[in-house]
């Protein structure tokens, strides 16, 4: 494994209207792991991803991706935004959206050609939606929308992926497709940071976990940090059955 971590965040603070959304966050994600980011609503999970990708201004702190600044590491990062962040009535097709993942590589003035179409085709097949390629995106189900976004990230061929709530409100088959994809990415040595909401499945799907509530409560290998105590400190008393959850997951 590479010595340089895939993602290294130091002293990150982000504020909206002088209210901190993230406070003094330090986070190290080693290369090749699947990491979940969990925390209550308003904990700053999405903000963490957006700040790590330099999509919003930081009040303080630094972000390094494989030791580089975010701007210089653009070719190394892949991004799956929240499904609800775009207007799905936009006049375009599934394969068009997936191809957008290649625009960054194409550079100015160049248009997608045969190579890009082939790459798009492969990603659609890998994610199991090749039959939807020419479908208008307004006709997709929620799970199909999510898989379209995943295929778009896949063609980016990144070394570290950031996925914002990919499991939110998807059907069982999509959930399994995402899990398979995550495992394939790990097998190829890729790093994936996933904002996640289902506490139950964290130990099954992820090697590492970050418990976040504006500050980082705990971060590290799931077996070490995913404890009842840490969950309580993250969620306050607000999650029923935390004890049962961790007992079942970590005997």
């Amino acid at each position, binding site marked *: 494994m590479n010595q340089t971590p895939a993602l290294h965040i130091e002293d990150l603070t982000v504020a909206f209207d002088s209210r901190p959304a993230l406070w003094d966050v330090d986070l190290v994600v080693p290369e090749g792991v699947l990491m979940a980011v969990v925390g209550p609503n308003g904990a700053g999970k999405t903000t963490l991803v957006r700040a790590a990708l330099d999509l919003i201004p930081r009040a303080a702190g630094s972000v390094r991706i494989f030791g580089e600044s975010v701007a210089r590491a653009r*070719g190394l990062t892949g991004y799956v*935004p929240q499904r609800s962040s*775009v207007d799905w009535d936009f006049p*375009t097709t599934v394969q068009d959206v997936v191809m957008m993942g290649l*625009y960054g590589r194409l550079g100015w003035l160049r*248009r997608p050609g045969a190579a890009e179409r082939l790459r798009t085709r492969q990603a659609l097949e890998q994610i199991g939606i090749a039959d939807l390629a020419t479908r208008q995106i307004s006709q997709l189900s929620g799970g199909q929308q999510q898989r379209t976004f995943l295929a778009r990230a896949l063609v980016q061929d990144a070394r570290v992926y950031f996925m914002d709530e990919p499991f939110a409100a998807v059907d069982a088959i999509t959930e399994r497709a995402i899990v398979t994809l995550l495992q394939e990415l790990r097998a190829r040595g890729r790093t994936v940071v996933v904002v996640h909401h289902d506490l139950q499945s964290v130990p099954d799907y992820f090697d590492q976990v970050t418990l976040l509530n504006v500050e980082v409560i705990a971060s590290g290998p799931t077996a070490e940090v995913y404890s009842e105590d840490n969950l309580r400190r993250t969620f306050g008393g607000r999650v029923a059955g935390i004890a049962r959850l961790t007992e079942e997951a970590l005997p």
Partner: protein
Amino acid sequence: MSLAGGRNWRTVAVLLALSLAVIPLSLALGNIRVDYTLVTVAAGGAVLGIVCGVLGSFAVLRQQSLLGDALSHAALPGVALAFLLAGRELGWLLLGAGIASWLGVLLINSLVRRTRLKQDAAMGVVLTAFFALGITLLTYIQSRNDASQAGLDQFIFGQAAAIRRQDVVLISAVGLAAFLVLIALWKEFKLITFDPAFAQANGFPLRLLDVTLSTLIVIAIVLGLQLAGVVLMVGLLIAPAVAARQWTRQLDQMLALAGIFGGLAGAGGAIFSGLQQGLPTGPLIIVVAVAIVALSISLAPERGLLWRAWRQRRDRQRFAAQQVLQDIHRHATQHRDPRYPAPGGMLVALRGTLARPALRQLQREGLLQAGADDDWTLSERGLERAREAARNQLLWERYRQFGEELGLPSVTVDTQQPIDRLLPATALTRLETLD
């Protein structure tokens, strides 16, 4: 459901041909004498309409329709100031309009970013402030009794008659330059319109692209001002795009159609206002544009209201016919005789007013035989069809329930469609053998 791209481009071509036919047709019907002025005015209107329609599509898709309204109102003080400084020269007036409109965008954006004002409130404030300033300046200019100011108020409601040949050349040149930028940055504009965060994450300079696209929209507005006027300009920007969206599901086709519709509205409005002295062009353009919108919203395939109503009615009738057929089949099965007749009254009681038309339709198709006493019997084909329908229903039911679990290809569930045609044979076998 999914149409081939080819059919969509055919729709675009047909609509283009129709639009082109409207102009000579209206000339003939309106008994209009074609002269040099009319040709100039119509050409100016068409070019402006095309530019506004194409660029306005982005305003619509970025959900910035009202921003267009604020921008056009904000241009008025620029026109007035340019007149005071440089006199009545179209190039200068447009430059003034452009700068004022641009300041309007900057002001709205910084209000939204730096204060807690929401965008609609910020637009409302900027729009009225700039417009008030513009009207004040314009009134002042008119009060000076300066002969050269005549016609400056055309910028409020638009006046096509004032368009000269060199204006058309200027408008075409600027419009062409805007299109070249649009073509060069096509994929970037598409990306920032659909998913700005993803564009940014891929290293595209979002702010710069945003400003470039907004500038193109400002250019379209400024060019259109003397034709449509500041008050109604937003209509020429938005209406063609709204109409175009109804007919297509691809961005490039939408822009092409919006250009066609915009050109039609622009030329049409200009020609109509040329019929009589003093008719304002802006309102006439909007009348034509809105007529196109109305036609598109009601007639366009798939999204159109009439289309949807018609399809709903057809589906309901088909569904009722199928239900009635199965009712008769079930009734016969219960009596252990496939030819056992079902009384019409019973079917009406079961299915309501749709039962009678359904019975007539089934009889026309030769699936039913009418007995003497309002009795209905399945024909050989009818029996076959009813058995097929029952099987189809069952397989769809199973597909809906277990399709994803079995990893079958995803198709839209539509029990009115024969499932055999949508799923491969292997998938059907799996559904049939399901326990």
